[in-house]
């Protein structure tokens, strides 16, 4: 389908912003068959996440989990990273945009730079290190952080004195002082905006005394302080005296929720969780018993299993003080006195060693300008305007948005949105899939299995990085003496383009069949050298690297002789291993070009529809008689969007799409196979007929249900209802039926019914907004009505805060209760009376009420059978568990299976739609590959020695080995992750891990220790 101008859509996409959202969108799209131009104004990708220490709620090290993504983005053939670049303008329409771009000079040519770091070593300038939040210094020639992608240096010309030293030492001739800005344009089919937010600057306010008190830090500064790679190398210290603090306070809502006159009015959605995390991690870092206190208004731990994280923090002794701070005053030389009023209005004060300001998000000025240039609408908070039912689409067709530009949010939500935006894009441009992508054209591979090893050794000088310390010629000559070595040489930069070409020629000429490169780390360079082999028709596994830079010259600079000796040892080890390397075949398996979607609610329908729009076929299996799910019980959203017309049109669209097969009253009866090739039997309709489907992916969207309360006279008194019941009452009123809420004098709502208690420690996320939504609606119906909301913490996260503010403005009363002093609901004949404790008056109050509305928990649907069939995990409360809470929020750890909607955890309709698009994107990017390469460095079983003992079956963390019909273990290469655990457990030594076989490992050790005894 071409667009209105008749032109075929472009198969390329512009992604603006290379933080975690931009990277995820790029990866999804590039794997889906689109060429991605990933633009970031900074010299590196990674965004704010790269600056974080640990991430909630898993406490994973942020760099540990983001760095594989950085590498993946950096290596992807179809991601064109454009660092130091900004978007100047956007012309055209969805499908055919022309983007004007401007690249700022970097002064170092990324094509030539090998990231050897010589330039930085000689740079005489010191400048503030923004990456460490100005807590330490860097050179003018710098790399933002060691794992940075693209791997190359930058010169900060704002501070550079132009001394020319770096230019002199750079043997790769990458330094260009005369580099200039370049303007250029690109044709793309769609744009995804993921520029992220800025951190609120607390220096605007006197209250926090941030500029004058060195021990008052922002939360991002504190992240760097905690980080092992940060300014203090992970030692918990405060900036003023570098002493370990014994007492730290966190102040919440700095820059959010209108605490001060010119703060932002919204909630920044992430600060409660990160403050708890920082407190917990700080306690872990501390040598003594660190006292931590968090001063907050509402503790908004609304995400999946966040509440349990909060509870654990309380158990760890983190103090939570519900209060606002009046002031921070210096105490003694550098301590800090906080003055605050507690909940009863009592004035209190306490001295801390250090104060962390939990600063919020805001859209940066440059981003606002960008929005204007791209002609997209921004709301009053400067966030991009989106429609609740199209949460990733901006006001301009063909321009999508994800991450914090759409609204404040945490990493998993950003990642979901990124995939969601990719799904939208992929559906828009599906006709042009694979039209602009690059692919490698490789010659057929030469079979070397019968040949004796002929090893070529290439020793890299890495400029002077290696050659300056290690006697490279001596290492080269030493290599010549080793067994099977037929060629040696050394290079200035083995990785440079010209060397690669020459290496290929030498390998051909000399009949070399194993290559050893003694240079830097395989982490960054192995893919490059493997490509060199592939280019000349050799199997990529016939390559071995000796890391004589990072493991030698860089770390043994002071002793050249020993460094040279070690280089020889490392080369000897690699040559010995190379001689035993074997070529490994990777087989291609066809991927079934269809997906099975389980659950026909909003999430399942959106997932199926997007898959179909992407050009894949979808089978939508719904247990009930009709599509629609839980959304059928919601009249409108808090922002006034009518839900039923939306659901009706969605159903119509799903049913009408030729690519979707809808099966109602249906259930999965059996499931087998593996990613790309699943076989599922579905019992269809009321008959007992089973239909069999072959499909490549599965999306689980089985939904949730509202808790039916056992408390507060629910089910005993007509005036007691859940929020969902109230929705029905309001709808019936519209139809002129039943109990008319307009006649109520007073309605009292009780929050957290069935949530956040012993039975169900989770927060149900959506009930606070349901209560506020209905309260506002009741108020509209009868402005004289008294409405009281009894709550524990009002969790009106993100932009929902506006509705909370509005509700208070309209006189809706909010009164807090504690879990150990629940409100009491009693029947008073026809009426009801509610007793609750008022914290301000400090006494119990009794009020009559016409209606008591219970904000009942959202509970997982019953999926016992399905979870067993699919072998996917669920948590103790029945919600499915994603592969990784932070970075893989819609994937299951079993590949090819995805999840979305409330089956994952309670969420709003817009969030469910986002997640369903995300699941469709993940599924689509897998299907788009059409084939799957399996094999390579995976485990394989020697049938003749297998004792069928089940040790591998028991020890595999992924459940891959199976005892087959021949009664021996079988390891499916498509599923094996290659960790080697089973290999090292097998009591019969019947399993080996290709490329890491026992002899390939021990021969290295043997070579290292040659002659030791």
């Amino acid at each position, binding site marked *: 389908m071409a667009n209105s101008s008749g032109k075929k859509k472009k198969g390329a996409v512009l992604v603006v912003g290379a933080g975690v959202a931009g990277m995820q969108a790029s990866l999804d799209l590039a794997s889906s068959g689109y060429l991605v131009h990933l633009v970031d104004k900074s010299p590196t990708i990674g965004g704010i996440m790269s600056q974080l220490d640990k991430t909630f709620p898993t406490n994973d090290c942020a760099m540990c989990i983001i760095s594989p993504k950085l590498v993946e983005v950096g290596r992807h053939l179809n991601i064109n990273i454009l660092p130091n670049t900004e978007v100047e303008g956007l012309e055209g329409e969805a499908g055919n945009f022309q983007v004007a771009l401007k690249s700022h000079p970097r002064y170092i040519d990324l094509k030539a730079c090998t990231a050897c770091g010589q330039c930085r070593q000689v740079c005489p300038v010191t400048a503030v290190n923004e990456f460490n939040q100005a807590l330490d210094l860097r050179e003018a020639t710098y790399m933002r952080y060691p794992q940075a992608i693209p791997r190359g240096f930058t010169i900060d010309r704002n501070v550079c004195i132009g001394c020319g030293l770096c230019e002199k030492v750079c043997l790769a001739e990458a330094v260009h002082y005369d580099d200039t800005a370049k303007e250029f344009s690109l044709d793309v089919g769609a744009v995804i905006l993921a520029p992220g937010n800025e951190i609120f600057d607390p220096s605007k306010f006197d209250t926090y005394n941030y500029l004058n008190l060195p021990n008052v830090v922002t939360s991002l500064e504190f992240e760097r302080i905690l980080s092992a790679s940060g300014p203090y190398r992970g030692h918990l210290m405060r900036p003023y005296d570098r002493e370990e603090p014994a007492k730290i306070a966190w102040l919440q809502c700095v820059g959010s929720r209108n605490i001060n006159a010119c703060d932002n009015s919204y909630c920044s959605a992430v600060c409660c969780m990160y403050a708890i995390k920082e407190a917990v991690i700080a306690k872990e870092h501390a040598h003594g018993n660190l006292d931590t206190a968090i001063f907050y208004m509402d503790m908004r731990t609304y995400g999946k299993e966040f509440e349990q994280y909060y509870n654990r923090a309380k158990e760890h002794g983190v103090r939570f003080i519900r209060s606002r701070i009046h002031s921070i005053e210096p105490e003694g030389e550098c301590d800090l006195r906080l003055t605050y009023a507690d909940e009863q209005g009592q004035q209190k004060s306490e001295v801390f060693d250090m104060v962390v300001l939990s600063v919020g998000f805001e859209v940066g000025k440059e981003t606002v300008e960008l929005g204007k240039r791209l002609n997209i609408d921004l709301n009053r908070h400067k966030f991009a305007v989106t429609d609740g039912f199209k949460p990733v689409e901006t006001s301009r067709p063909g321009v999508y948005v994800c991450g914090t530009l759409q609204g404040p949010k945490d990493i998993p939500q950003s990642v979901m949105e990124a995939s969601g935006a990719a799904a939208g894009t992929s559906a828009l441009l599906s006709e042009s899939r694979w039209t602009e992508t690059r692919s490698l054209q490789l010659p057929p591979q030469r079979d070397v299995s019968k040949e004796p090893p002929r090893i070529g050794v290439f020793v890299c000088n890495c400029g002077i990085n290696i050659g300056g310390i290690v006697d490279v010629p001596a290492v080269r000559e030493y290599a010549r003496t080793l067994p099977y070595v037929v060629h040696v040489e050394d290079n200035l930069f083995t990785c440079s383009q010209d060397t690669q070409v020459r290496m290929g020629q030498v390998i051909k000429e000399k009949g070399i069949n194993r290559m050893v490169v003694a240079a830097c780390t395989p982490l960054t360079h192995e893919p490059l050298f493997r490509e060199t082999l592939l280019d000349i028709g050799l199997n990529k596994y016939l390559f071995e690297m000796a890391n004589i830079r990072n493991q030698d010259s860089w770390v043994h600079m002071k002793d050249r002789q020993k460094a040279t000796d070690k280089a020889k040892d490392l080369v000897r080890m690699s040559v010995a291993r190379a001689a035993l390397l074997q070529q490994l075949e990777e087989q291609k398996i066809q991927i079934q070009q269809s997906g099975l979607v389980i659950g026909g609610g909003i999430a399942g329908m959106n997932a199926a529809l997007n898959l179909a729009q992407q050009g894949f076929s979808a089978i939508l299996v719904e247990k009930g008689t009709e599509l629609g799910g839980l959304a059928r019980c919601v009249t409108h959203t808090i922002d006034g969007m009518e839900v039923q017309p939306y659901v009706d049109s969605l159903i119509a669209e799903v049913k009408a799409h030729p690519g979707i097969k809808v099966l109602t009253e249906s259930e999965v009866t059996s499931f087998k196979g593996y990613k790309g090739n699943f076989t599922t039997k579905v019992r269809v309709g009321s008959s007992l007929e089973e239909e069999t489907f072959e499909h490549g992916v599965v999306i689980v969207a089985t939904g949730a249900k509202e808790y039916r309360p056992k408390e507060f006279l629910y089910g005993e008194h007509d005036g007691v209802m859940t929020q969902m019941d109230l929705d029905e009452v309001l709808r019936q009123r519209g139809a002129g039926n039943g109990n008319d809420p307009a006649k109520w004098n007073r309605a009292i709502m009780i929050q957290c019914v069935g949530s956040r208690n012993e039975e169900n420690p989770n927060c149900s996320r959506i009930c606070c907004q349901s209560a506020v939504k209905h309260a506002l609606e009741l108020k509209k119906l009868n402005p004289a009505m008294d409405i009281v909301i009894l709550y524990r913490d009002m969790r009106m996260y993100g932009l929902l805060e506006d509705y909370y503010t509005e509700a208070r403005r309209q006189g809706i009363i909010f009164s807090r209760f504690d879990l150990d002093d629940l409100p009491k609901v009693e029947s008073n004949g026809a009426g009801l009376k509610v007793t609750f404790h008022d914290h301000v008056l400090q006494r119990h109050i009794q009020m009559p009420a016409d209606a008591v509305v219970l904000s009942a928990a959202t509970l997982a649907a019953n999926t016992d059978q399905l979870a067993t069939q699919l072998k996917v995990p669920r948590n103790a409360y029945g919600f499915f568990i994603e592969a990784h809470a932070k970075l893989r929020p819609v994937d299951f750890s079993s590949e090819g299976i995805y999840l979305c909607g409330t089956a994952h955890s309670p969420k709003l309709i817009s969030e469910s739609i986002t997640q369903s698009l995300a699941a469709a994107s993940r599924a689509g990017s897998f299907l788009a590959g059409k084939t799957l390469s399996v094999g390579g460095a995976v485990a394989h079983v020697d049938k003749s*020695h297998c*004792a069928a*003992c*089940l040790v591998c079956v*028991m020890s595999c963390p992924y459940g891959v080995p199976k005892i087959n019909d021949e009664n021996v273990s079988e390891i499916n290469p498509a599923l094996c992750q290659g960790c080697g655990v089973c290999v090292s457990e097998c009591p*019969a*030594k*019947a399993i080996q891990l290709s490329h890491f076989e026992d002899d390939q490992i021990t021969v290295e050790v043997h070579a290292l220790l040659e002659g030791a*005894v």
Partner: protein
Amino acid sequence: MIIAEPKPIDEIIDSLKDFNRILVAGCDGCVTVCEAGGMKEVEVVASALRIYFKQAGRAVTVDEISLTRQCDRPYTAQLADKIDQYDAVLSLACGVGVQFLAEDYKNKPIFPGVNTCFMGGTEEKGLWTERCQGCGKCILANTGGICPIARCSKRMLNGPCGGSSDGRCEVNKDIACGWHLIYERLKELGQLDRFETPTDPKDWNTSRDGGPRKVIKEVSRL
């Protein structure tokens, strides 16, 4: 299967320290499955022995092999062409294998490398428990499929004794009371009536107490 556990390496060294040419022979049967004497253990024990001999300043050969089963002569015979090169064999098979080798190679010292423990099954990875003592006259039909001989610490046939509590044996809280299990199972099966009939003294003649046993299946004999 037969469950065994590796002997401590110092005990093995003690038995082999005077030899110069040693073959470590594993068994691919039960002891592989219970991770006591398969090829993996052969490699571990042989490597440990070589380290020991090296540090002791000795020039000792320690070779490695694993046989399909050491309790069948055609497999033990596979050592025939190799055995002369060794002064001693360390067998990692169960006691049966050790004895088969000893019978087959009369002039070679054969040492056990594992402690043969019992007949049992795999409870979980790395945990094996006893189920049968080979009494030669199975009574499981009467005891709900749970053997009191193997699973009651006092081998009672009319249990439980008065010492168990919470379903655990008086000897050790880690041991389930066998009779408690039997009771639960009989209850489940609706056969509690069996519980009140005293079981007569058992004929132990078919067990170890009758001397070394043999099983003859006439139809199978050639």
